[in-house]
């Protein structure tokens, strides 16, 4: 029995490793291989935690409507699993509407640095209980992560909090901060899986997928994998032209409109 389990583990490990070799992250953005957190003990002889994704990347094609990826893996019991997925951080400007002469107008604005484009946390047990025991600030709930976001400029504290709440509210509405804490389901006490929901309006970049194995509230193993999110095929081509070849793209758009308008008009009048 023990032997069989080891064999399965080895096979899974091999497939995960080959998957990583065969599908290197092809995103053009600079990677963020921060590697393992300092709180993790140096490479154990046999891995305690193995993780893979159902897809090596999220491809935004012409038919993209958002996607759900499956993260699955295996761990050495006992322990609890926490998964954190983070999109690339950027500066976001939050606008606030206020009533001005009876009209609702964007009057307030506040920029925040280091805002993750996407943030999702899932755990095999209620997160509060896991995090309360202290993981050295390694694993952050969404609220804790947002609390660490830096504001640009100065503003009264109470108001700053309102802007911060507003930012989370907008991101949540767009599906970029899935509200609920996801459930990592564990089977046979050593296999786990969790679904990662990605909405249709998804910023591009290299996302960071991390899985942690916790025992008695301490991180004993962590696996980090980059997940490139990007447009592919026709969409990528068009967006690339729009970004880098503005004048050419503009002329192309005009030519397209002239051609379709002319031909379409001529054809429809015949009918």
């Amino acid at each position, binding site marked *: 029995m023990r032997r069989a389990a080891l064999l399965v583990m080895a096979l899974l490990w091999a497939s995960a490793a080959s998957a990583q070799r065969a599908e290197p992250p092809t995103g053009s953005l600079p990677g963020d291989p921060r590697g393992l957190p300092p709180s993790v003990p140096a490479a154990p002889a046999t891995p305690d935690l193995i993780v893979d994704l159902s897809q090596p990347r999220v491809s935004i094609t012409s038919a993209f409507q958002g996607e759900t990826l499956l993260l699955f893996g295996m761990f050495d019991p006992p322990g609890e699993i926490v998964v954190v997925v983070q999109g690339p951080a950027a500066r976001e*400007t939050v*606008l606030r509407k206020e009533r001005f002469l009876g009209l609702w107008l964007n009057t307030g604005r506040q920029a925040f640095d280091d805002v993750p484009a996407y943030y999702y946390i899932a755990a095999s047990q209620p997160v509060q209980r896991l995090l309360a025991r202290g993981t050295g600030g390694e694993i952050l709930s969404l609220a804790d992560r947002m609390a660490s976001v830096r504001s640009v400029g100065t503003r009264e504290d109470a108001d700053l909090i309102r802007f911060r709440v507003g930012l989370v509210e907008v991101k949540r509405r767009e599906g970029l901060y899935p509200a609920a804490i996801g459930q990592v389901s564990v089977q046979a006490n050593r296999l786990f899986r969790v679904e990662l929901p990605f909405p249709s309006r998804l910023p591009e970049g290299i996302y960071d997928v991390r899985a942690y194995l916790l025992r008695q509230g301490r991180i004993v193993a962590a696996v980090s994998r980059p997940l490139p999110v990007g447009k592919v095929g026709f969409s990528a081509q068009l967006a690339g032209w729009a970004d880098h070849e503005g004048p050419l793209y503009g002329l192309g758009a005009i030519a*397209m409109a002239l051609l379709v308008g002319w031909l379409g008009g001529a054809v429809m009048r015949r009918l």
Partner: protein
Amino acid sequence: MEIYLPIAEQSMNIFVLLALGGAAGLLAGMFGVGGGFLATPLLIFVGIPPAVAVASQANQVVANSISSLQVQWRRGNVDLRMGLILLLGGMVGSSAGVTLFTYLKRIGQIDFVIAVTYVVMLSAIGLLMMYESLSTWLKRRRNPEAPRGKLHTHYLVHRLPLKMRFYKSKLYISALLPLGLGFLIGILSAILGVGGGFVLVPAMIYLLGMPTTVVIGTSNFQILFVAANVTFLQAVTNGTVDVVLALLLIVGGVIGAPIGARLAAKLPGVVLRGLMAVLILAVAVELLTELLRTPASQYSIGFREVVP
């Protein structure tokens, strides 16, 4: 069926976009104006970011105007001299407009300015048209034999300098008038993503006193080049032209336009103008309530920038 719009960066139902383009085309065919004034607010309403909606709509206007210009040109309904002067103003106006647009987007006020400009423009024009068609209708009812009046009335504006003769329009007016009008339409075109036909056509009739036969062709001529200029500048400075979105709107418009033209042929002009006035006013009221109503959420995200 959903399609991903690469510049708007979201997926949207194909048929919703085709129907939107179709409605704009229907209006274009019926009233001879672009229908952009309806399509842009509706695009924003279904969730396309205003900056993308405006820029892509300008691209659609190019297709729309070439297809009606085709017919008008063949019928000799284009006053080329008037068109070129309008165009000169339009080019300057639309270039200034795109710069203004970029600035407003930067300070986060573009949505508000788009909405307010729409409300002001649409309600002014809607009320004017409503008044005009109602009074014409009442006059005709009271006295069907009444003479149609002078060819055109002379206003104060006809005393401006730089007078030019426009043979096709049978006009002798200052070139400053069409130049200024073109300039204003250019700004509108850049900020609202419309051809501006809904302003230009009434202005040419009531302000310049042009005969109705050449109005549509001439305005189409001006709008074609101004919209092309806006598309180009938006693509270069803001990168907000979504060709996939524009193509769907164009295809819808191409199908809608002849249907509108056939409908228009069956209705008398007064009724047609009255209908259009009602439509314009309805859009204005809807936009105004949007501005007055307490929003579902006070917060929105302006823009995202990756800071190294």
